[in-house]
């Protein structure tokens, strides 16, 4: 008998707050955490975490302070996720999987800081939790977080571990701002995914953590991962595919695994970075997959593009949609701006949901998709 993979608890940290509940409140009210911000002699529209709140939260945790900023965020998010749970990484049957694109990128300016190595950061975090197993970290561009969720699914389903803590995080940094800016990929306003006037990404920072387990805890409204797959466009290292066939392949893989067809998907949380080419590619892929009528949003309008955290923060947002039977508007969207129209959510409303799909795509031509289902 193959074990099912249940969502037990989660936590979101971004500009919108340090709890999942604060994020849901912002989604319901359509409030963004994106603000104008001055650095590198320019103004950028970004979604930064409140530093004073971070210090306050960290002090409340009362642990030794010698951690880097991102490590603090990871430790806070994982601690909050494990609160009141019997499951803990110090037990043999529990694995920690992190996801990040750049890790402690803020220490790169300092020479010879070992914490610039992603595995060093991973080990620092695992040591804090006295992890029994060697932790893992995925660094696969902007699909990292979604892929970490897929790996958790595979580890539990194949019986290798009973419990997996997945946590994805990345910082807002001059490193990524200058790079995306050189790519002319940053918008001049708050990002507007799928909108006619979209002109680029708003970068953000955050951490999202989910505890998955083969054991389910409560009897009603159990959320499970039922499928997941990744793929590659094999087309260009930075330009999104012109056909969307790579993302379509990842969606098909996840649907096949879940035993579902397009009509079963009640809500789709897209990647929706708000660059002209990305959103166009996604719209084509959703058409190829027969999902053009499915209610779709991008959460980027709320907390920006959080890179290696994006997949997990947006998986949690999708899970909470599913659990609460609510769908949230795609902030920044006014007028259809993709050549093959898709059904973008314009306002907060209640909707009975059974299965939701989360997709992600990134540099290197990679794509990933994961399906969450509600079992009553």
């Amino acid at each position, binding site marked *: 008998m193959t074990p099912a993979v249940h969502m037990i608890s989660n936590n979101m940290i971004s500009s919108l707050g340090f709890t999942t509940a604060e994020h849901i409140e912002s989604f319901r009210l359509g409030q963004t955490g994106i603000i104008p911000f001055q650095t590198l002699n320019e103004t950028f529209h970004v979604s930064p975490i409140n530093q004073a709140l971070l210090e306050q939260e960290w002090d409340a945790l009362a642990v030794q302070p010698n951690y880097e900023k991102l490590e603090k965020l990871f430790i806070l998010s994982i601690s909050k996720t494990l609160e009141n749970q019997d499951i803990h990484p110090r037990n043999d049957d529990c694995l920690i999987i992190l996801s990040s694109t750049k890790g402690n990128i803020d220490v790169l300016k300092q020479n010879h800081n070992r914490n610039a190595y992603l595995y060093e950061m991973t080990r620092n975090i695992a040591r804090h939790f006295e992890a029994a197993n060697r932790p893992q970290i995925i660094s696969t561009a902007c699909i990292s977080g979604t892929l970490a969720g897929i790996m958790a699914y595979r580890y539990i389903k194949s019986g290798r571990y009973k419990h997996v803590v997945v946590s994805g995080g990345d910082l807002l940094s001059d490193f990524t701002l200058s790079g995306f800016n*050189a*790519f*002319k990929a940053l918008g001049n306003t708050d990002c507007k995914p799928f909108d006619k006037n979209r002109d680029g990404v708003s970068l953000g920072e955050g951490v999202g953590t989910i505890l998955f387990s083969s054991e389910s805890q409560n009897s009603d409204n159990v959320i499970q991962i039922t499928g997941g797959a990744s793929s590659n466009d094999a087309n*260009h290292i*930075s*330009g999104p595919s012109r056909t969307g066939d790579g993302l379509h392949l990842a969606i098909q893989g996840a649907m096949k695994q879940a035993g579902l067809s397009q009509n079963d998907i009640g809500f789709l949380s897209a990647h929706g970075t708000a660059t002209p080419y990305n959103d166009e590619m996604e719209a084509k892929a959703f058409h190829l997959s027969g999902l053009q009528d499915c209610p779709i949003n991008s959460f980027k309008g709320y907390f920006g593009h959080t890179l290696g955290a994006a997949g997990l923060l947006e998986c949690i947002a999708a899970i909470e949609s599913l659990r609460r039977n609510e769908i949230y508007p795609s902030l920044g969207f006014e007028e259809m701006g993709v050549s093959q129209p898709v059904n973008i959510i314009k306002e907060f409303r209640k909707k009975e949901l059974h299965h939701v799909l989360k997709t992600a795509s990134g540099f290197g031509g990679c794509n990933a998709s994961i399906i969450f289902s509600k079992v009553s």
Partner: protein
Amino acid sequence: MEAFANKLKVQIIQHLNLEDLEPDEVGLDDPLFGEGLGLDSIDALELIVFLEKEYGIKIENPEEGKQIFQSVNTIASFIQQHQNT
């Protein structure tokens, strides 16, 4: 003008790491993108950086680049126009 265009061609080949190409293989009016030299979107962005760094000319809108980056000659005359003003 032609001497300048030839110098520019060598600079571009170096800047874009087009190592398999000898300068003689590239005509001054050959299309740089698509069927021509096969440059891609990253090269176009890199040419924007190149113009700013080497010639102090800023291009804010990448769409503008499409007109300018048609061939070595179009880039050369764009640079000369901007240096004269």
